[in-house]
């Protein structure tokens, strides 16, 4: 899975932050308990891996997720709920009136 490949909780946080929209290095550092140099280092790695891109906007360097990364994040959430709701439905279906706190009878 994408997030296993990130192999670092800070990189995971940066990717999730960028899922909300593009950010500059300073904006990312302001929202995470990580220094600017550390954020820059992580962003370089993420860029080398093709997960994020950056562009210059005036004096700011702005980072954004590559569309494929955003899609992978979404796919992961989709897959989580598919799995979790299947288990929910199984428990719901196998719940007999006597086993619920409130019975219909």
């Amino acid at each position, binding site marked *: 899975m994408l997030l296993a490949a990130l192999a670092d909780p800070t990189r*995971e946080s940066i990717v999730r932050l960028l*899922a909300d929209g593009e950010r500059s290095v300073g904006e990312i550092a302001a929202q995470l308990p990580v220094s600017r140099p550390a954020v820059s280092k992580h962003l370089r790695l993420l860029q080398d891996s093709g997960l994020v891109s950056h562009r210059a906007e005036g004096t700011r360097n702005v980072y*954004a997720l590559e*569309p494929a990364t955003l899609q992978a994040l979404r796919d992961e*959430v989709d897959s989580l709920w598919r799995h979790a709701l299947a288990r929910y439905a199984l428990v719901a279906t196998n719940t007999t009136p006597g086993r619920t706190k409130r019975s219909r009878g």
Partner: protein
Amino acid sequence: MIETQATTLEPVRHRIEVPLTPAEAFELFTAGIARWWPFRGHSCSGERAVDVEFEPQVGGAVVEVTRDGERHPWGTVTQWEPPNRLAMTWHPAQPVECATQLEVRFAASAAGCELHLEHGGWSARGDQAAEVLEGYRKGWAGVLGRFAAAAVENGR
């Protein structure tokens, strides 16, 4: 020419039907979550997690609890309307700044209860396009304004 991208992603949506009343379905989803949540691989504590506690009110905490009593926040309740609606911010094992948005609705159906789940809260560069265009527009207006002022100044 400035390119814009329509790359906002739609929320994840799922719908299931269960043979429970909406009230039972709501309770199973919240108070009964330990009976079905796949903690291994989908929690802060893996196999040590034993429950997720919901504080049943808007602003209430949603917290994973381990067998040793450790507590790990998952999010905050934004809507608590049993039996029909639950919504919360979602950020297990992440800072709150990285939260996405979850909404679950429970509606009575012929077979019991229809559950609609929507998990969203991500956008992409496309959402920034309008702001970038606005920024360019304001930028040029500023430049031209200064040019005009300078022209007037030089003309004196």
